[in-house]
């Protein structure tokens, strides 16, 4: 108030971040880099396996370059102030994922395995390139149609209903498909879709809209007990509901990943919205309790826990144990610098080697150095997401960006932890890297939404207008 009540202090100053206006050229340079690296990797795989530069190099490089160019031009046009790093990082991961999938397509072991199981072998890399194109298309649609992320706030409760429907679809008889015990797919006309991947974005809308309205009640009404603010009994309603829903997912869909993702995302957003550490403590206790109870009763979850606790004890008898065991051996034989692209034996994992277990190929062929670089690439995407949340001005955008990056981070933790044997394996896929359409498409949409929020957040504030005090002093001047 002082600046308007005291005319002598009209030399007020505003402090803002120094922003090169848009940084689109930085993004373009990084994108070129992000296309060149996978092309190099592709040539490397071909030279290692077949002693020649693969014939698809030009087509592949042009395909990836075209996708990156379309993404960049759309960002330039529709979100000129968006974060310069997210698009190149996602492009690089997507491109390297394509290379790794192509590398596993070249494996004679996996080709034989597919022929003996399904009668024929079809390479996954061309399909994945198509899915990536669809993902970029959805990214473009998000940036073009979603002019302002605050519009999504209007659909708070509709998105809750939509997310629940999506999560329950795999349980509908005739629509749901049971793949290795986990019922998280639906199949429509020959395509199998994992609705949970899309539900994670939609439910973030609901969580942010809901917590924005309720956060005062959840944060302020509490008693202090042993250094923690304990919420009132009735404020535990939402977290208990979410807990019950994620346990139901765990029991009926046999999928640890999805339930962990949704409950974890809610706890993260609850913590960010209320600044109360007690919610994290309560959330961890509830998820630990739920996990223990379910893992003793549900058979599919029990198998996974056994495979996690002692993969080599049941290596000969159980397929799940053999997979984990092979994955751990891949990481081990990779060492620090890896065996080199195309020269590892991660194809011994067999089933899901190029989807759930693709990170084991990174671990074997690029070693610890490569794994760390990949984790840092993911970490940078998450950092940009959180940074967007910090810069966003509206509480809905803040919570939404936090929720999306939190879900992304949790997914990476759950998958990487699963294949490394840190936590029981879950049926989730590494974003952008793993073979699978739903995952790559949904994650491109997620990046599109984060770019939209960051465009709004980083857009420079309009120049401060004339200060009425100063004008009046000028009027007084003779």
């Amino acid at each position, binding site marked *: 108030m002082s600046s*308007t*009540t005291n005319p002598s202090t*009209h*030399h*007020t*100053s*505003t*402090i*803002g*971040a*120094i922003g090169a206006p848009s*940084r689109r050229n*930085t993004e373009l340079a*990084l994108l070129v*880099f*992000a296309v060149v*690296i996978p092309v*190099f990797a592709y040539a*490397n795989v071909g*030279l*290692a396996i077949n*002693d020649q530069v693969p014939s698809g190099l030009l087509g592949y490089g042009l395909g990836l370059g075209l996708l990156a160019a379309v993404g960049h031009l759309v960002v330039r046009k529709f979100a000129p102030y968006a974060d310069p*790093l997210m698009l190149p*990082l996602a492009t690089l991961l997507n491109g390297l994922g394509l290379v790794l999938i192509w590398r596993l397509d070249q494996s004679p072991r996996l080709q034989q395995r597919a022929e003996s199981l399904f009668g024929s072998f079809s390479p996954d890399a061309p399909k994945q390139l198509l899915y990536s194109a669809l993902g970029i298309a959805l990214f473009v649609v998000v940036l073009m149609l979603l002019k302002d992320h605050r519009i999504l706030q209007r659909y708070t409760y509709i998105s809750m209903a939509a997310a629940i429907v999506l999560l329950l679809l795999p349980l509908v008889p005739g629509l749901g498909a049971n793949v290795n015990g986990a019922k998280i797919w639906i199949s429509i006309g020959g395509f199998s879709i994992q609705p949970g991947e899309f539900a994670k974005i939609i439910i973030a809308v609901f969580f942010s809209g809901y917590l*924005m*309205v309720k956060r005062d009640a959840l944060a302020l009404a509490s008693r202090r007990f042993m250094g923690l603010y304990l919420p009132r009994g009735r404020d535990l309603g939402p977290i208990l509901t979410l807990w019950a829903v994620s346990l139901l997912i765990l029991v009926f869909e046999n999928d640890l990943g999805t339930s962990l993702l949704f409950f974890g995302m809610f706890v993260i957003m609850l913590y960010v919205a209320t600044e109360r550490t007690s919610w994290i403590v309560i959330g961890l206790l509830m998820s630990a309790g739920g996990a223990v109870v379910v893992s003793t009763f549900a058979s599919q979850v029990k198998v996974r826990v056994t495979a996690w606790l002692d993969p080599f004890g049941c290596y000969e008898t159980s397929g799940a144990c053999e997979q984990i065991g092979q994955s751990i051996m891949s990481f081990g034989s990779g060492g620090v*610098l*890896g*065996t*080199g*692209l195309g*020269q590892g034996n991660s194809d011994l994992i067999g089933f899901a080697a190029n989807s759930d277990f693709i990170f084991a190929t990174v671990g074997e062929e*690029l*070693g610890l*150095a*490569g794994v760390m*670089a990949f984790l*840092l*690439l993911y970490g*940078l995407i998450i*950092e*940009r997401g959180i*940074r967007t949340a910090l810069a966003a*001005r*509206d*509480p809905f955008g803040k919570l939404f960006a936090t929720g999306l990056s939190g879900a992304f981070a949790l997914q990476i933790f759950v998958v990487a932890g699963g294949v490394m044997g840190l936590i029981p394996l879950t049926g989730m896929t590494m974003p952008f890297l793993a073979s699978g359409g739903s995952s790559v498409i949904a994650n491109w949409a997620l990046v599109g939404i984060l770019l939209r929020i960051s465009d709004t957040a980083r857009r*420079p*504030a*309009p*120049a*401060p*207008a*004339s*200060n*009425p005090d*100063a*004008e*009046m002093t*000028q*009027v007084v001047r003779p």
Partner: protein
Amino acid sequence: MSELTLTVMRLGFLAVLWLFVIVAVQVIRSDLFGTRVTQRGSRRESGRPQQAARQQAAPPQQRQQASGGGRQRRGAPTKLVVSEGILTGTTVALQGQTITLGRAHDSTIVLDDDYASSRHARIYPDRDGQWIVEDLGSTNGTYLDRTRLTTPTPIPLGASIRIGKTVIELRK
């Protein structure tokens, strides 16, 4: 392919991958360091001499009366800009709709401010297209320039409306 070539390619690839990570981190640095201090007083005098001169000619009361006439149609505001407070930089296009301000979450501009009431004020166009600000019985009041509002008041272009820590303006 010789062992040596493959080893060089393997290490080269890791180096390139890490180079990308390092370059990306360098880009982030520019977001972490450095702030810009804008001197609002001096900037206005140099940057907007015409506007300052025009407003110098018309004292505030005259501006308010004149704004209902021909001058308003020529220079009707098209957007509402938040110029101070945590929402600084937010703009809302003025398209003939009523804009509500307050802490209530269904307000057009949601003010996260202890000094704002849940339904604090509204800004709406009258029949002539003149924008009016009206205080909706707020606890701490709405200020147009430095006068507390008691009745619905027309908003002159560039005048600041203050609610708690937030200042908004209408711009062309």
